[in-house]
């Protein structure tokens, strides 16, 4: 089976989400670098892959895809014979829980954590700008409320969707990885089950490999 092409950057959070899935299923792939500083992501060639001008995009033969969570599902379904089942689509109740906690990542966790990472890491390091502390502070308060829910969940369940590792857990990795190299990493200390879950999932070989390509490794 020929490998897929991923257009993006290994330091990008959403690209990392897709690379993790590829590594988890052991798929062959080619990473094609998109030059963000020169605006390549907004040029016509890339807009033909991702009309929102964002990374990543996937090419697999004639198929072109965007949105990292959709690409992730495609990769996991395409390579489901690999033996790594992170979607549980053979089980109605389990797959429902994977979708629930993937949506929780998408709609609750991500909106709280991404402004913290954006302001405290990306703005100064990539754009030479000044962090907006008001945004960081209000996002931290939102993140704490989300982490309270996660703490309760992970006190009853080894992983988010159940007692099995799934795409729902994996999807949290990229932004959390970056939070951990900011001063705000300490927020996890107050949530011991969340912290233990984080230590568990980051011990996976796929995570170590993708993490090595990200900032601060």
């Amino acid at each position, binding site marked *: 089976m020929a490998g897929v092409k991923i257009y993006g950057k290994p330091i990008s959070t959403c690209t990392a989400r897709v690379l993790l899935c590829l590594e988890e299923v052991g798929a062959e792939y080619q990473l094609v670098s998109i030059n963000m500083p020169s605006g390549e992501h907004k040029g016509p060639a890339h807009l033909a892959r991702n*009309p*929102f001008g964002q990374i990543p995009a996937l090419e697999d033969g004639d*198929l072109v*895809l*965007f*949105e990292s*969570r*959709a690409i992730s*599902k*495609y990769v996991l*379904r*395409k390579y489901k014979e690999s033996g790594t089942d992170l979607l549980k689509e053979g089980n*109605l*109740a389990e*797959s*429902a*829980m994977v*979708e*629930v906690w*993937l*949506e*929780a990542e*998408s*709609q*609750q966790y991500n*909106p709280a954590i991404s402004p913290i990472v954006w302001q405290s890491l990306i703005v100064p390091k990539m754009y030479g700008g000044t962090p907006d502390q008001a945004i960081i502070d209000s996002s931290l308060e939102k993140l704490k409320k*989300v982490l309270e*829910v996660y703490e*309760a*969940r992970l006190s009853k369940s080894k992983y988010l969707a159940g007692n099995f590792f799934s795409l729902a857990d994996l999807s949290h990795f990229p932004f959390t990885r970056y939070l951990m190299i900011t001063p705000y990493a300490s927020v996890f200390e107050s949530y011991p089950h969340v912290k233990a879950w984080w230590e568990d999932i980051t011990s996976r070989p796929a995570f170590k490999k993708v993490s090595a390509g990200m900032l601060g490794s």
Partner: protein
Amino acid sequence: MASVTVYGTPLSPAVSRVLACLFEKDVDFKLAPVDMAKGQHKSPDFLKLQPFGQVPAFQDELTTVFESRAICKYICNKYPEKGNQTLMGGRDGGLLAQTSVDQWLEAEGQSFNPPSSALVFQLAFAPMFGFKQDPAAIEQNEAKLANVLDVYDRRLGESKFLAGDDFTLADLAHLPNGHILVSKNEDLFMSRKNVGRWWVEISARPAWKKVVEMQNAPLG
């Protein structure tokens, strides 16, 4: 007899997203009201169903599900033979059709939803609940939404619906916020030829009309 219960009010966009899916799929359900004004959504009993204290929650004999887009997918997976059978991809579309639906459902969740929800709050809910509107927030989010709708206009010039030839969950997901926004400022959608055509078509679907009837029904 319905084994399906949806918790919430039809006036909530996220709840109405689930109701639209249930009507499309011809799945019977019971609507259990949640009194947000009295804080019922933060009560211990409700938090057992939905730990973030938000509506909707969904319960059947097998499980409890929350997050409206996850609920919609569950309904489609549980009842593949009922009602509309192309909501998650074409009849024989397989992986490619399903993937296209996933992609555009993510576009709704990540690109359309944030600015449209902010505008729905500012233009509809703030005045309803006596909050002060924020003109800067309205302007910023209208600009963001305009960029998203420009992308949609190009896509809908090439494709009948967002994910392809069939109406899918990807289109359905836009109905709740779209309905409120069009009632406040129809120009946003209708000034764009293809978005306008698409909006007229999806909002005319009988399943959506049933949801709007529920929203307009007198209280009590």
